Each structure stands twice: as structure tokens, then as C-alpha cells.
């Protein structure tokens, strides 16, 4: 027998001794085709590497003649045969480039054939026994052959080159027509080397693909390796180990390995460089005869007595671990990190070299940034090891040169079980729990465990034969177990609530408690998988990407050429690694599983959306929906009326069924519709369907029971027309219509019966005439039963016109939605207008917000503009700072000294009292440290050191009245500490958040920052709004609370400090202005109006937002105008116009202005000189012109006449006017 791989597809072709050639798909493990034109054994077979061809070498039992057959597998037929060999053919091979076939035969010759010209190109003679094998060199013009004459020969066929020709050349045309063999090259193959060394017949010989090496297999039970050069060839070494004839041998195409198999029922792997056996695979009863390798993949096939095995030597699965959006994986002895979103792929470190085997698994620990890498040596499991590495944060050359960092121990597998613990399955099947230093902390004896998987903190998944068990490593207790044969991988969903267990052919999905949710069987091996965020498991088999829902629904998403290993699924992107460990991104169409998921989760709006927008494939989805009991959903997919009708009936949707029935107009449909409608009591539909099917009996009965006598009468007429006498009679009877019946009986010549009928019912006239007729015809006159009564059917109480009461079925989501969608067409006009309206409303609000935003933006700009001007004051502050520092040191010294002494005293007393146990003294608490480390008042408040905080506030900004601050103090203090419970039933322990927690040491502990400058600034908005709305007292409240909060701020830079000062000024201006405005109400006496106007005038000089300034000017203008102070009024008007008020205000103002300018005189002189700059005394509301004595509030900077010095500031209500102070201290930068 012989085997050959298809170069592209997952096919392997096997020729059998029986003469059959079988085409197998090794991935699907199915027999695809058979070619059975050979009668005798087929010993050689080979796929062409590009054409849809294969060649087989067969023979005939009777006349021992070998022939080659060339087949086209697409056309599934033998194209032609090549005759020439005089005995069995042993092997056949295509040339990789030329249109040649080489065959070796028992007739002691090797022949080369041109399959295009179908001619023998060359006959190579020289062996003096059966030639068992002959092969082309993969790149050079050489042939190697092995013979039972114990020799191996290398032939030079370069002389044949000129014989290679395409069928188009004239030469070959001639050759074909003449039928003569090629003129050239008959004797052009010359023996180059004869390799002698085997003691018995040689069965196989093959070239190395790149090196000048040959390997041979012989009946002397050894494999020999030969080397050659231009002039000679010599034996390199012998591989001993087979204990029977060696049938076949090949070089591994990509590694330094030799594979051989033989009649000792084993396949052996040899190290080519050391010529020692590495591995042996044995079969129980079957002798091996042949080996084949895949031209590109790492696959091999071996044929034995009873079949073949397709195998690979080692796992090709890349090892990787996924954490969030990061994939850690190993490639070429490097640990690499791939960020999925950015596809940034960097090497992190070089890994230590280990045993000659690929890595088996990786487990990553994000908390410690450490990985465990397991290397498992197949067939020598005891030699398996794991390495523990700490991963460098980023790739850097220095760390990557330092692979010794890792710790290595033996173990079959290692996975993390906690932040600082990992579990190792060791070779004696004991689970060791180790800490990060690789020290054993615990041992768990689980003799049946042969594999462990990650299962979250403190847990492990343990594989025992055909079970996987969830095991609590801490309690040493198994929690749950699920049946799955030889699970290979466990993949957890992102939130760890589901796990997929993958064995070779089984997928089991379980929940966190390892309760099985579903099981899926696959025919092809499962490879990998990952959970979608929506709880769909996306997995790969060797040829498909598939999905699985938790309820077990699954299906194919797309096919794959080569296996891939999914790392992450995100939306419709599947991130994966291929066998060459290249990161790849595949896109999938998630519609189908999204749809099914939405159905399962009853998210019908999504379903509907997908129904409308996505292109779902018809039949399968419909079948799915029907099967899963969603006929009403399926209804919306169906265009075919017949299916539609069926589905509509299934879900009892009579209307749609009626529609479909009309379109179909098929008798059976109507019948079915009638039945269903009758069941539902929808008798109108029943009537229609009976009409359509012309089912008069039923129709008549229907009319009877619905009491529709009119229609029943019509039915009688119809029956008459149809000459359906009995029907007509029956209806007449039902109607109680005696005349009709008598008439009918007469017509039917049932005169006597007609007479009886007439007589009985008292139709005497009719009876009489009938009597005469009977008498004339001499018929006997029937006797009339005198007791007969007229049977009159009961009269219907009411005619049932409408349907019977139908069960009110709530319209399914879909129907409703569908109806709506239908209606939108008609009502779209209305919909549009409402839409326009709704679109408009938010626009208005947007406008509003723009307005307020504008206010604020203006303020912002102003503040920035002012900054330049303020620099001066900032530097001024600096000077005072220095003084402050010297002063502050005093406090600093005070406190610790105090503490130390008390602590010392404690020690002493404790010692005296206890003798044997010394209770420790109290340490320094965090708040105490805050007090020590800061001179900012708020830090002291947070520390609960109110006394020092008040002292600081008093010294810095002159606060003397703390009523307004109480709330702020308590509130601030309440955020100083967080709480957590330690031991049950005991009160909380407190933790103290620090603002410099990253680099905090006892020396610089500082509490975290609560209120920030920006937040205070943003609070201005509310106060502004209150001002705009005229709620002055509330606005003052707000401004004051902002102002008072400023000394409790903490900011970083001096610029922030000056901004805070700005904030105070804004608040001050507003408070003065607003309070002044409110003071107008309390005015009394004669000159109320004049005084009021004065105050209004002063108000215009408060530094307010333009919006508010406009308002003040408007009011001042009005008042001045009323007082006939036209001169002042005109200046107000001009100032107002400069601010750009709204058009109507502007127009109004201009009018007033023109009036004023006609008579620019002030009738009542005021204490107001707008041209002379002044401050307003915040207590008496009189102007203090520049140069006049003034005293100020240390915090707000509000001005007062000197007589108010020492009083409480009217603006802050907390500070003392004119107190000497250090100034605002709100930043550590002010102390540097």
C-alpha cells in the first residue's frame, strides 16, 4: 500500500493491496471517494503538486505486468495508463517541476515517463534485484533508488533535461503522432554513486530537502544516513533500534529529525544530528509499511496492516494567556505582549531554553505581573517542567537579557490559584500549592487527577478520567463535578460566570457552580474558544469558527483553511493566533448568533431590528424559529405564501392566514383556515372559507346556529338552483317553511307525502287540491294523524352577526411592531411634523444653555485677562509669606513636643504597673501627622484640630466669627476618614485618605483634597442665575458660601492661588452690590428716592457680569430719569449702550438718551461723581473716593470707612474689618 497527501486540501490518498484507491479527508475523518479500476494491488500512489492529478502504480495478478495510471480526481476517472514495466510497480512519484513520473519496479528497472506526451522518457537499469523505491531529488537532477540487491544508487538524470518538453512543442507533437519513444535521453541516466552498506535488501531511500544527505531503510533492521558530494557518497551513521525489517524512512521537512517505521509495528523518531532514538510509537498488532509527509504542514501519515494513521510530532498550539485586552504569548522563545485594541505587539523578555518540546500552557497573574509556563515532554511526562517568570513592565533590552530571573521546577502543569499562590500538578499526581517564591505551602493528594485548569481564586478545575471537578484548594474539598471525557481546555467567560470545557470532540458549557448548561458534540477536533461579551461562546474546530449559546444552540460562523486559536472576541472581530504564532484578525458575521441570542433573551426589539435590517438567510432561520417555537417571528421572514399560511395557522394568526389563503386560493387551505377559525370562534372567517370551498351543508348549519335565517333562506334558493333537493328540503325544514316543503314534495312526485304534509300543517287548500290529484290518480289517500303538531324551529333570539367573543390575545411584540411599520407609511406626514416640533424644543433649551454658557465664558475670559494685572499682588503676597513661615515654625515645635512627653510618661507608668506585659504606647496617628506637616487651615480641620485651624484662619484671613464656618468645619471634618470593619461586631477601623498617597512617608502625610477650585468656580453659575432671577438674598447666601469656602481650598500652584483670589473678588462685588440693592427697601425718610437712586448708581460700579451690569444700569437709568437727573441718566444710558444690550432695550435706551440730552441737567444733585474713581463702603454704602482714608476686610477686601474698623465685615460676616493678617494661605507652594 501507499499514501500521499494532497498539497492544499485536507486529503490523503491511500492505495490498497485490494486494488482500491481511497480518498480520505483526514480532518473530517471521512472517506470521500473510491477509485477501483485496478484489479491487483496498487503499491505506488502520488498527488501532483499543482494539477488535479494523481498517479498510481498497479499490477495484475494474472500477467505480471505493471502499469501506471494517471487519474484526474476532479473528473473522477483514469485519464490514461502507461505500460512498459514487466513486473510489479513498487513506487510512483511525480517530478516537482517537470511533467515526469518516476516508477520503480520488480523488473529491476526504474523508468521516467512524460505524462504529457505519455511516453517513457528513460529506463534506468543497473540494479540486479527488485527496485523497491525510486525518488527524484527535490531540487537537483538526481534520482535515488533502493533495491533488494542491498545497494542504493544515486543517478544523474541531467542528460534527460532536453527531453522535458511541453505538449505544445512540435517535437512532442511528432512524438505523439509517431508513437516512437523520445529520441533523446534513452540512456541519459547515469549512475553517480552506488551506496553499499546494508546487509539485506533496501526498502526505501530518500533525499534530504536541502542538505546532501540520503536516508535509507532496509531489511537488516537499520536506518542508514549517507552523505554525498559531487564525487562520492559515504555512510555517515546507522540508527539501530528496529527489531524487524524497516519499511520506510523520511527526513522531517523542518526539523533535524528522521522518522522510520517497519514491520516491528513501530514508528521511530531519530535525532538526525546525534543519530539517537528520541521517540517510539508502537501499535499492538499492525506492521507498518509506508510513511508519507505533508508537503507544507507538519503532518505525517503511516500505513499499516489494517489502515493508516495521520499524525504530527508535536503540538502546534501556540501558548497564550489573555487578560482583558492584552494577549501574552510565546513566539520564538520570546514572551510577547499584544494589545488587541491597538494591535501593538512587543517582545517583553527572552525565555530560558528548556527541554526539546514546545510550551504546553501559560498562566498569567495580573496582580503580580507574573507568568507560569509549562513545558511538557510528550511520552516523557516525568521530565515536564514549569518556569515562573516575573514579566517586565515594558520591553527593554536590559531585562530581556536576563532570563535567569525565572524559577524552574518539575511539574506537569502549573496555574495560578490566587494572587500569591499557584498550583502545580506534579508527576506523582499531587497538587502542590506554592507561593510566589516557589515554596510549597500546601500539598493536596489527588491520585486520579491528571490535569488542572484555572478556576478563579482559590479554586481549581481538576480532571479525573472522564470528569472535571471544581475543587477548592483552600478547603481541600471538591465542590461540583461534570462529566466530560478528557477535557483539554477550560475557558472562562470574562466575568467568570460561565466556563467552557473543551475535549477533543465535546464542548460542555457550565456555570460558575459547574452545573452543565449544555453539551455539544463535534466531529472534528475542537481547538480553541473565547467568550463574547454578550455571553456567546465563539470557538474553533480545525475547520470552522462556530458559536454556542448557553442553551446549546450552535452553528457555523465561517470556515477555516487552517486551524486558528482564538484569543479574544470583540463585536464582529475574532482575534487569534495561527500555528506560526502570528496574531491575526478575522471578521465574522455575528448576525445569526446575535439574533438567536436576542430570541433566547426575549429581546424582541433587537430581534425585530435585525429582522428588518440584517440579511438573515431564509430557510434555516425559519426552520430554527419553527423548531424553537417562535412561529410568529418566523412569519416575518417568509415570503412564500404557503409557508406563511402554515406558520400563521401555527401561531393562530387568522388575519395573516386569511391573507395568505386569499393569495393561494387553494381548497385545502380554505378548509384548514375554516377549521382553525371555527376553533377560535371567528365565524365570519368560517363563513368565508365555507363559501370559498362551496361546502353548502356546513354553511347552512353555520347559518342555522348563528340564527342567520335570511342567509339560510338564500342557501335554500341556492340549493334549488343546484337542484339539491334533499338539501333544499332540509333547509326548508330548518326554516319551518311548510309551503316550500309541500312544493318540493310535489315536485318530486311524492304526492301522498305532500298531501300529508299539507294536511297536517293545516294548509287545507293545498291539501284539497292534492287530495283531488291523488284521487284522480287513484292512489290511496294516506290517513292523517290528527294528533300531529306543527314542528316549528325555535326562532333565533338574536342574529349572531359579529363573531363569537374572541379571546383577547395581547398582540405579540412582533405583530404590534409590524402593524406600526405598516402604518408609518400612511401617517408619516403627521409623524414628521411632530418630529419637527420635538426637534425644535430642545433647540430652545440649547439656546438657553448657550446663553448661560456665554456668561460664564465671558467671566472666564475676564479672569484670564486680569491675571497679568494680578501678578503684582501675588508677589506682594510672597513677601508676607516669609514672615509667616517663621511664625508657623513655632506651632510646629509645640505639638510634637507635647506628644513626646506624654508618650514617655506612659511608658514609665506601664512598666511600673504591669511588670510582665507592657502594653504598647500609643503611636502617632495620621491626623496628628497632618497637623505636623501642614499649615493650611483645611488640613487642620480634617485632622480634627479645630483649635489650631481656627487660629490659622484668624491669623491668615482675620476670621473672628465662626458661626458661618461651623457647618463647613463639620462637613470637612466628616470626610477625613474612610471606614471598614475588621473583626465582626467591633466598631469600624478608620483609614485616612492622603492626597500624596503615592509617595507618602510619615514625614509628609497630607489629607486628600475635597473641594476643588474648579468646583467652587462652577458653583458661581447657580449664584449668577439667582441674581438674574432677582432672588438677591439667596444669591448673597450662595456667593458668601463660595467666598467662605475659598480659605479651605487646597490648590497646587500660585496661579491657582491668584485664581482663588479672583473668585473672592467676584463674590465680594456681587455681595456688596446685592446687599446694597436690598438696602434700598429699608430706606426711610424724605430723600428716599434720591438715596435709592444713589444706591442704584453705586451698584453700576460693582464689577459684575455684563448681563448683570446691564440690569443695574437699566434700573439706575430709570430711577435717574424719574428724578429728572437727566445728566446722570444720559451717562447711564451711554454706558448701557456700550454694553450692547438686546435690540429693544437698546432702542428704548436711545429714546431715553435723546430726551435726556435735550436737557442735560440734574434736578436733584446726588453724592455721586462717576468720573472720580471710588470704592463703596460696604457698611454705609457711600462712595469712598480714591485718596480718602479706607479700611479693608482682610479676606474679601471689601472697603469701609475708617469708623467701621474692628467691626464684623458685612460681606463675609466672619472677618474683622481692618485686622492685620498674613493673607490667604491655600497652597503648599506658598510655603516653599
Amino acid at each position, binding site marked *: 500500500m501507499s499514501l500521499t497527501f494532497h498539497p492544499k486540501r485536507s486529503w490523503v490518498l491511500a492505495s490498497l493491496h485490494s486494488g482500491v484507491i481511497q480518498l480520505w479527508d483526514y480532518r473530517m475523518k471521512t472517506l470521500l471517494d473510491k477509485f477501483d479500476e485496478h484489479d491487483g494491488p496498487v503499491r505506488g500512489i502520488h498527488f501532483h503538486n499543482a494539477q488535479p492529478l494523481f498517479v498510481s502504480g498497479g499490477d495484475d495478478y494474472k500477467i505480471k505486468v505493471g502499469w501506471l495510471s494517471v487519474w484526474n480526481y476532479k473528473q473522477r476517472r483514469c485519464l490514461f495508463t502507461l505500460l512498459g514495466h514487466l513486473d510489479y510497480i513498487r513506487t510512483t512519484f511525480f517530478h516537482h517541476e517537470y511533467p515526469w513520473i518516476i516508477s520503480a519496479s520488480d523488473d529491476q528497472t526504474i523508468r521516467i515517463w512524460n505524462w504529457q506526451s505519455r511516453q517513457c522518457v528513460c529506463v534506468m537499469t543497473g540494479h540486479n534485484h527488485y527496485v523497491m523505491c525510486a525518488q527524484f531529488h527535490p531540487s537537483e537532477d538526481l534520482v535515488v533508488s533502493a533495491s533488494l540487491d542491498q545497494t542504493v544508487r544515486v543517478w544523474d538524470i541531467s542528460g534527460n533535461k532536453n527531453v522535458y518538453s511541453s505538449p505544445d512543442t512540435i517535437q512532442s507533437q511528432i512524438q505523439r503522432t509517431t508513437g516512437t519513444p523520445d529520441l533523446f535521453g534513452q540512456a541519459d541516466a547515469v549512475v553517480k554513486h552506488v551506496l553499499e552498506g546494508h546487509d539485506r535488501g533496501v526498502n526505501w531511500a530518500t533525499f534530504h530537502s536541502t542538505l546532501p544527505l540520503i536516508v535509507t531503510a532496509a531489511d537488516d533492521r537499520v536506518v542508514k544516513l549517507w552523505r554525498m558530494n559531487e564525487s562520492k557518497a559515504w555512510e555517515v551513521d546507522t540508527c539501530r533500534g528496529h527489531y524487524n525489517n524497516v519499511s520506510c524512512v523520511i527526513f522531517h521537512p523542518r526539523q533535524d529529525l528522521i522518522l522510520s517505521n517497519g514491520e516491528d509495528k513501530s514508528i521511530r523518531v531519530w535525532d538526525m544530528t546525534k543519530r539517537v532514538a528520541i521517540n517510539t510509537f508502537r501499535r499492538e498488532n499492525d506492521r507498518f509499511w509506508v510513511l508519507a509527509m505533508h508537503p507544507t504542514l507538519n503532518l505525517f501519515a503511516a500505513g499499516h496492516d489494517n489502515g493508516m494513521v495521520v499524525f504530527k510530532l508535536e503540538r502546534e498550539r501556540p501558548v497564550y494567556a489573555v487578560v482583558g485586552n492584552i494577549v501574552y504569548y510565546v513566539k520564538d522563545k520570546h514572551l510577547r505582549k499584544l494589545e488587541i485594541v491597538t494591535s501593538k505587539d512587543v517582545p517583553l523578555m527572552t525565555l530560558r531554553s528548556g527541554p526539546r518540546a514546545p510550551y504546553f500552557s501559560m498562566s498569567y497573574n495580573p496582580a503580580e505581573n507574573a507568568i507560569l509556563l509549562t513545558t511538557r515532554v510528550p511520552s516523557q511526562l516525568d521530565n515536564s517542567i514549569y518556569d515562573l517568570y516575573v514579566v517586565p513592565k515594558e520591553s527593554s533590552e536590559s531585562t530581556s537579557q536576563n532570563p535567569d530571573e525565572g524559577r524552574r521546577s518539575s511539574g506537569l502543569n502549573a496555574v495560578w490559584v490566587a494572587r500569591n499562590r499557584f498550583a502545580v500538578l506534579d508527576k506523582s499526581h499531587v497538587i502542590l500549592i506554592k507561593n510566589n517564591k516557589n515554596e510549597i505551602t*500546601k500539598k493536596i493528594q489527588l491520585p486520579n487527577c491528571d490535569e488542572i485548569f484555572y478556576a478563579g481564586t482559590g479554586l481549581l478545575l481538576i480532571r479525573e478520567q472522564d470528569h472535571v471537578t471544581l475543587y477548592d484548594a483552600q478547603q481541600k*474539598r471538591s465542590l461540583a463535578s461534570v462529566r466530560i471525557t478528557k477535557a483539554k481546555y477550560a475557558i472562562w467567560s470574562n466575568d467568570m460566570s460561565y466556563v467552557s470545557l473543551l475535549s477533543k470532540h465535546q464542548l460542555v458549557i457550565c456555570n460558575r457552580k459547574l452545573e452543565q448548561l449544555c453539551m455539544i458534540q463535534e466531529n472534528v477536533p475542537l481547538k480553541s474558544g473565547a467568550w463574547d461579551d454578550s455571553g456567546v461562546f465563539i470557538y474553533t474546530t480545525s475547520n470552522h469558527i462556530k458559536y454556542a449559546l448557553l442553551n446549546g444552540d450552535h452553528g457555523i460562523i465561517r470556515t477555516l483553511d487552517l486551524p486558528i486559536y482564538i484569543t479574544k472576541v470583540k463585536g464582529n472581530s475574532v482575534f487569534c493566533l495561527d500555528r506560526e504564532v502570528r496574531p491575526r484578525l478575522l471578521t465574522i458575521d455575528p448576525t445569526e448568533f446575535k439574533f438567536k441570542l436576542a430570541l433566547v433573551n426575549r429581546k424582541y426589539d433587537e430581534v425585530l431590528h435585525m429582522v428588518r435590517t440584517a440579511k438573515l438567510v431564509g430557510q434555516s432561520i425559519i426552520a430554527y424559529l419553527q423548531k424553537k417555537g417562535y412561529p410568529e417571528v418566523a412569519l416575518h421572514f417568509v415570503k412564500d405564501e404557503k409557508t406563511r399560511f402554515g406558520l400563521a395557522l401555527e401561531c393562530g394568526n387568522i388575519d395573516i392566514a386569511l391573507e395568505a389563503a386569499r393569495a393561494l386560493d387553494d381548497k385545502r387551505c380554505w378548509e384548514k383556515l375554516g377549521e382553525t377559525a371555527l376553533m377560535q370562534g371567528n365565524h365570519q372567517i368560517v363563513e368565508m372559507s365555507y363559501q370559498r370551498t362551496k361546502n353548502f351543508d356546513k354553511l347552512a348549519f353555520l347559518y342555522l346556529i348563528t340564527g342567520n335565517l335570511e342567509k339560510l333562506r338564500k342557501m335554500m334558493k341556492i340549493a334549488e338552483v343546484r337542484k339539491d333537493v334533499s338539501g333544499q328540503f332540509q333547509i326548508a325544514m330548518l326554516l319551518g317553511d311548510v309551503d316550500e316543503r309541500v312544493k318540493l314534495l310535489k315536485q318530486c312526485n311524492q304526492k301522498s307525502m305532500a298531501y300529508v304534509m299539507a294536511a297536517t300543517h293545516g294548509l287545507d287548500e293545498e291539501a284539497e287540491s292534492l287530495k283531488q290529484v291523488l284521487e284522480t290518480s287513484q292512489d290511496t289517500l294516506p290517513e292523517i294523524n290528527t294528533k300531529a303538531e306543527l314542528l316549528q324551529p325555535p326562532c333565533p333570539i338574536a342574529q349572531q352577526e359579529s363573531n363569537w367573543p374572541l379571546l383577547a390575545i395581547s398582540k405579540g411584540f412582533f405583530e404590534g411592531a409590524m402593524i406600526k411599520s405598516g402604518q408609518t407609511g400612511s401617517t408619516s406626514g403627521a409623524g414628521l411634523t411632530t418630529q419637527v416640533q420635538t426637534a425644535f424644543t430642545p433647540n430652545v433649551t440649547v439656546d438657553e444653555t448657550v446663553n448661560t454658557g456665554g456668561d460664564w465664558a465671558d467671566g472666564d475670559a475676564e479672569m484670564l485677562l486680569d491675571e497679568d494685572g494680578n501678578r503684582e499682588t501675588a508677589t506682594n503676597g510672597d513677601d508676607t509669606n516669609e514672615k509667616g513661615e517663621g511664625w508657623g515654625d513655632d506651632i510646629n515645635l509645640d505639638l510634637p513636643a507635647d506628644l513626646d512627653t506624654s508618650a514617655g510618661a506612659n511608658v514609665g507608668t506601664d512598666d511600673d504597673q504591669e511588670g510582665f506585659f507592657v502594653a504598647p504606647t500609643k503611636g502617632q496617628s495620621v491626623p496628628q501627622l497632618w497637623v505636623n506637616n501642614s499649615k493650611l487651615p483645611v488640613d487642620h480641620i480634617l485632622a480634627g484640630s479645630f483649635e489650631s485651624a481656627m487660629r490659622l484662619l484668624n491669623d491668615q484671613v482675620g476670621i473672628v466669627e465662626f458661626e458661618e464656618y461651623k457647618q463647613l468645619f463639620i462637613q470637612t471634618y466628616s470626610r477625613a476618614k474612610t471606614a471598614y470593619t475588621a473583626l465582626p461586631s467591633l466598631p469600624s477601623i478608620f483609614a485616612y485618605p*492622603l492626597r500624596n498617597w503615592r509617595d507618602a512617608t510619615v514625614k509628609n502625610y497630607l489629607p486628600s483634597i475635597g473641594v476643588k477650585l474648579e468646583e467652587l468656580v462652577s458653583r458661581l453659575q447657580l449664584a449668577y442665575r439667582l441674581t438674574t432671577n432677582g432672588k438677591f438674598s439667596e444669591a448673597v447666601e450662595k456667593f458668601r458660601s463660595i467666598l467662605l469656602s475659598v480659605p479651605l481650598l487646597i490648590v497646587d500652584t500660585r496661579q491657582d492661588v491668584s485664581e482663588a483670589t479672583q473668585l473672592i473678588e467676584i463674590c465680594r462685588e456681587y455681595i456688596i452690590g446685592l446687599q446694597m440693592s436690598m438696602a434700598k427697601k429699608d430706606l426711610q425718610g424724605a430723600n428716599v428716592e434720591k438715596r435709592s437712586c444713589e444706591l442704584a448708581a453705586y451698584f453700576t460700579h460693582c464689577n459684575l457680569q455684563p448681563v448683570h451690569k446691564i440690569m443695574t444700569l437699566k434700573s439706575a437709568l430709570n430711577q435717574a430719569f424719574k428724578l429728572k437727573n437727566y445728566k446722570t441718566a444720559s451717562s447711564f444710558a451711554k454706558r448701557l449702550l456700550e454694553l450692547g444690550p438686546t435690540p429693544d432695550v437698546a432702542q428704548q435706551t436711545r429714546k431715553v438718551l435723546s430726551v435726556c440730552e435735550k436737557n442735560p441737567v440734574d434736578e436733584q444733585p446726588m453724592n455721586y461723581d462717576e468720573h472720580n474713581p471710588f470704592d463703596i463702603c460696604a457698611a454705609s454704602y457711600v462712595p469712598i473716593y480714591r485718596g480718602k482714608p479706607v479700611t479693608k476686610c482682610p479676606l474679601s477686601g471689601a472697603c469701609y470707612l475708617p469708623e467701621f474698623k474692628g467691626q464684623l465685615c458685612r460681606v463675609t460676616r466672619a472677618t474683622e474689618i481692618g485686622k492685620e493678617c498674613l493673607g490667604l494661605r491655600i497652597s503648599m507652594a506658598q510655603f516653599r
Partner: protein
Amino acid sequence: MASQDRDPDELFEIRTNFYIGNYQQCVNEAQKIKVPQHLQTEKDLLMYRSYIAQKKYGVVLDEISKQVSQEELLAVRLLAEYLSNESKRESILHELDNKMGGNVKNSFCLLMAGYMYYLQENYESTLKVIHNADSLECCALAIQALLKLDRLDLARKELKRMTELDEDSVITQLATAWINISTGGEKLQEAFYIYQELSDKHTATPLLLNGQAVCHIGQGKYEEAQSVLQEALDRDSNNPDTLINFIVLSQNTGKAVEVSNRYLSQMKDSYANHPYIKDLTQKTAELDRLARGYQPSVAS
């Protein structure tokens, strides 16, 4: 408890639920499972303590008669009595002082005594009574008391002792987290991992969630803190730790003053005796007193 290769701990579930603050579950489990005779008392103690933690003192007082022979049961009864009756505390403590003078060796009784001294804020006595005991819980109590005394250095030593006894025990892990929180800096993240791991593995109780929140707030991760605190609030709308942490968080994230005040009022309503509130009340009084010391030099 010192065990490296002991049989599965049959009380593990109960014990863990108790430590992580899942008290009802602890009670449920205790009533459900059957344990060997020698573990019976330990199981009952955990159950009674869970009742106490839920403030259901009556259950314990009714169920354990004063005449019971086992000293552990008496000790736990004493704790229930202490907690249930504020007026009797003095006498109970007095009694305790006398008893402790003698030689009580049972570590559980020592623990209960330590508990009561701790509740009395007499941390020195707490340390004194438990300093000979070698149970993990006594170590944990010692750590807690030392933290109260701001002796992080000594607390670390105690933790080391605990780690040597049983590193993997839930209570040891929790104690590690407490110390990490007090240490601050990078250790906050480690503390967070401990709380998160326990929440993942068992149940996310308000106790564990508040632990996480404290770490988050300590690291300035306010958004994360918000979400864990919200979860804690959903699970128990009146947990004092949650309320306190919300007060801190709402102020640090610039929420309106009212938000923080709302939590504070709730706290005052429900836990007038909580040290946090007691401290705050005391501070308010102090503030009033101090404020009287200031006034403007000239009355207006």
C-alpha cells in the same frame, strides 16, 4: 488552627462567611450542616457570634442558659449581654476585671474578654488579655487594637506571627489587608486585591466591598469607589461603613453639599453610638466652645 496538612476544614464555610461579614449565611450554614462532636461547640460559637453581629442579642441570651457548663458559651453569652445592655456594661467589665485576674487559659474566652475591652476602647487591656493567646483570631484582634493605637510597627509583627500560623486563612488575609490599608501607598492595591479576591471567591459582602472602597478612595480612584460603594449600598442600605465612605466620596468628587449631609443625617439617625458620630458630636461641641473665644474687637 495551625494546620498545614489537615483534613478539609469542615467549618471553613461557616468561618469564612463569618469573617467576611456574611452573617446570615453563616447562621444558615451552621443550622444546616452536621459536624463531628469535637467541632460542635466551635460551630455553635460562630453561629452565636453571627447573631451578635446582626445585633440579635436576644437569641443568644435566650438560648444559652447562665448555668451552662462550657466556658466558651458563657463567654459568648457575656458578650451578648454586654452589647445588649448599656447600663450593665460597667458591672460586666468589673466582673471581667476580676476574672481576668485569675488564670483563664481558653483562648476563646480571652478573645471575648479582649472584645469587651476593645468595645470599651480600652485597647491596652485588650492587648493585655490576649497577648498570651495563640489563636488566629486573637492575633487579628491584637492587630486591630494596635492599629487603633497607631502602632503599625507592632501590628506588622503580630501579622508575621499570624502568617506563620496559617498564611492562607481568610482571617490572616483580612488582617494583611488591614495592615496594607494602614501602610498606604502601593500597599493599597494589594489590600484591594485581597478584598476583591475574597469577594470573587465567596460573596461580595458590604464588609468586603467597603474594604475595596477604602482602597479605591485611598488611591483617588473615585469612580471605582463609587461603583463598589453603590453595590454595598444595594446590599445593605444602612451599613455604617458604607455611609461614612459615601460621605467622604461625595465630598471628594465635588457632589452637592446636600448629598454628603444626607448620608451624615442617616448615619446620625441610625448609629448615634458609632465612634464616628460620637467623635463628630464631640467635635461639634468643641467647635462651639472654641468659637466663643473669638469675636470682633468692636461690636457693630
